[in-house]
């Protein structure tokens, strides 16, 4: 079942109304955070239509998606809109914007159980962005001021990593506490 979700989310041309996937349970969503057996970089942005700074930065993710179309990058815009707003607010918003990036909605209200699983440093405030490739991850709470800032945040993941880079990354992770 989870595999079917993944296939739908990751391989179809997303952003359109029909393809937008709703995850009722975090357990079904979690595999999107664990695609570590590939060299694809995943950029996962958490947003909502009601969140001003989120809506402002969405075009940066669109631009990133277009500019990295030839690279192994998967951008997923995960809406945390209220369940009651999915039909009335999220769908019209998506219809209007026609994102080329993938869109999903996570409506599992047991936030206390899953916020830490996305990143232990996350307070739960929106927007927030997780980028990972293999075992290397980085997370940002708060918005990107412009496209360049987002690009910088992601580009480091796309270049082949030297051994010392990977080790240094491990060290940074080691000393990262909340």
């Amino acid at each position, binding site marked *: 079942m989870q595999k079917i979700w993944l296939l739908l989310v990751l391989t179809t041309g997303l952003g359109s109304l029909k393809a937008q996937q709703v995850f009722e349970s975090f357990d079904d969503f979690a595999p999107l955070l664990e695609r570590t057996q590939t060299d694809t970089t995943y950029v996962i942005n958490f947003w909502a239509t009601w969140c001003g700074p989120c809506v402002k930065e969405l075009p940066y993710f669109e631009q990133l998606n277009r500019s990295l179309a030839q690279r192994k990058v998967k951008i997923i815009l995960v809406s945390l809109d209220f369940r009651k707003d999915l039909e009335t607010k999220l769908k019209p918003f998506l219809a209007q914007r026609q994102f080329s990036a993938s869109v999903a909605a996570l409506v599992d209200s047991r936030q206390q159980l899953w916020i830490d699983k996305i990143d232990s440093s996350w*307070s739960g405030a*929106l927007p927030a962005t997780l980028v990972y490739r293999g075992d290397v991850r980085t997370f940002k709470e708060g918005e990107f001021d412009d496209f360049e800032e987002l690009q910088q945040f992601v580009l480091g993941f796309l270049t082949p990593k030297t051994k010392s880079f990977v080790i240094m990354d491990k060290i940074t992770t080691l*000393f*990262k506490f909340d």
Partner: protein
Amino acid sequence: MKTKTGLGIGFFASVLFLLFSFPQLSPVTGLKVGDIAPDFQLKSTSGKMVTLKDYKTAKGYIVVFTCNTCPYAQAYEQRIIDLHNKMEPMGWPVVAIMPNDPSVQPGDGFDRMTERAKQKKYPFEYLLDEGQKVFPAYGAARTPHVFLLDKDRKVRYIGAIDDNADDESLITRRYVEEAIAAVEKGNEPDPSLTKAVGCMIKVKK
């Protein structure tokens, strides 16, 4: 061989650099459970200047960072009113603080706060964090964000009001009420820290 040594030195230099710079990579700010929270003096929509010291008979304080404009704060507005009405007679008043910069979020200006408080007949003080000094001292990151303090201003619980913003009928845990009950019994609240989705506090760049 020489190049290897060179690489090694370069690598260790990088490690040293990272070791010394790591505190900047992960800013640790704000209060933790067990810390003593600072008092404050802030302007209320009631017209008063309010400090925690003013609450002479309080057994503790439900400090809630909230605002007019955030949909999550709006979802919790009536619940915050109900919480005050239920807990204030027991000695645990709500003290609401609006942390956003009104120049970034005009809907949260003091006049708009006053309007909202009047309209909804807020039974608690609704304070403006003028100059935005209080929310960083507490470590509030979102609205709504609760800091439950006992009468010595010791932080006993940080987090959400309950476990379902979306649908009140599906609440299974009322974290703040449970935390107060635990403190009253002389126990540590469990959980003492919860997370929930909310709006980023608006700060001028």
